[in-house]
């Protein structure tokens, strides 16, 4: 018996990842990430509805992700965006159409890759692994193909969502404290990056990480 709700959450996360590849508006990219994080936050609950019992651990993951990733992180990113008064990614290193195409290719690759790595235990959904791989690659693609610092942070976050999905295969392997540590580290990372973006904007009048090129050999 497949779990339709779980499938929908996973596929929605993937679609939002693809959408963030196609958008030029930084605000939209942040919104897509936030919606994606919400989909991903549901996954631990949806995995467990199959066995009937919802563990405290799943609720904890859901709540922590909701608070930190769905609300907290976008709040900080939007704030540094406001400070920076930059709205759109104007000149990506790779065009939007091309990135979309490459993204599609990477997703196909992820599905192929997932086949090469059969899990020791059957996961809750056979889409879990391929979609986790896909988010990972979409995030990396965003980081390398965009020039705005904010979009790169979004790429990093999407990548992190993919890793989170991997982590859900084995929900109990990370004790609570360490899970909190992982999530808090992510949150602080975005916080620190937000501060750096703010400083970049003040020092250079742009947040174009591609123009940061005075350091080289």
């Amino acid at each position, binding site marked *: 018996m497949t779990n*339709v709700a779980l*499938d929908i959450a996973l*596929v929605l996360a993937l679609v939002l990842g*693809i*959408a963030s590849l196609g958008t030029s508006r930084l605000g939209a990219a942040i919104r897509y990430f936030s919606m994606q994080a919400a989909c991903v936050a549901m996954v631990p609950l949806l995995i467990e509805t199959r066995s009937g019992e919802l563990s405290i651990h799943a609720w904890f993951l859901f709540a922590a992700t909701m608070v930190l990733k769905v609300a907290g992180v976008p709040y900080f990113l939007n704030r540094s965006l406001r400070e920076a008064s930059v709205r759109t990614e104007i000149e990506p290193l790779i065009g939007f159409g091309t990135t979309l195409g490459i*993204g*599609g290719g990477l997703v*196909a690759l992820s599905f192929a890759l997932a086949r090469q790595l059969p899990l020791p235990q059957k996961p809750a959904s*056979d*889409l879990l692994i391929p979609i986790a791989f896909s988010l990972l690659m979409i995030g990396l693609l965003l980081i390398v193909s965009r020039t705005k610092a904010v979009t790169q942070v979004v790429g990093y976050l999407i990548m992190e969502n993919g890793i989170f999905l991997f982590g859900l295969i084995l929900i109990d392997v990370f004790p609570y404290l360490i899970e909190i540590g992982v999530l808090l580290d992510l949150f602080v990372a975005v916080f620190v990056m937000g501060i750096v973006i703010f400083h970049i904007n003040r020092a250079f009048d742009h947040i174009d990480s591609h123009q940061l090129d005075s350091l080289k050999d």
Partner: protein
Amino acid sequence: MRTALHLAILMAFPPLLPGVINRVKAAFAGRRGPPVLQLYFDLWKLLRKGAVYSTTTTWIFRAGPVVTLAALLVAALLLPLGGGLPAPAAFPGDVVLFAYLLGAGRFATVLAALDTGSSFEGMGASREVTFAALAEPALFLSIAGLALARGTLSWTAMLSGQMPAWHLYGPAFAMLIGALILVALAENSRIPFDDPNTHLELTMVHEVMVLDHSGPDFALILYGASIKLFLLGAIIVRLAFPFEASIRAHVALFLAGMIVFAVVVGLVESTFARLRMNRIPQILIAASVFAALAMAVILIRVNA
């Protein structure tokens, strides 16, 4: 008897769709809008008129609308309308023929436009072909995804009967429907790809090609366009409402579904702005990517 009913729906129903769309748009704009049956009146009016032909045109120009309509009607014969109404013509591989018939129809229209020798129509033809080339992969990937899921290459087998596949392929089908709606909008020159109401030279894609046709020829073109809308709509409706019922209830259900489809198109047209020309390829690529994603999801399940 059933075939007759099928053909009757096929021939008579399509011109209703643009009427519904226009009413929805009018309602959104706060107008009353033209009657729902406006296209039928227009067709009747145009058919009684004579045609004017430019002296520079040849028989290709005259053949264009006829060939286009013929291609679309043949394509329509391949499409089932639901369990009770299988396609009048069905054989393995008819999905490919269907896609190529749509292409053949466009080819005839484009040739007719080029035949006028006007640079204006040439520009429209080039745009039409460019966007069609980008919409084609999305259409084919969607068809391939469906074919994989149902394990058949015939529309009748693919779209009729209960759709047991929904609980297995739900998210994939949702993405396929999304991709097909984008293809339908692009193929039928609707917003956000093209605006069927505008006659502004710089932005027109499809309308520009048919400006030189008049009288019965133009009636054929309008009728053909409504059939094309009907065809892509029917696929989406069958996919989205995979229900079966007694034949009378079924026909009612299907037609209601088509009306809903037209309303959705109307809503899209009222709420979205027309895209800048250079953004169109990007959206079509996105449609292809979604269709590909759907196929990937289906692939994983098919072999499991």
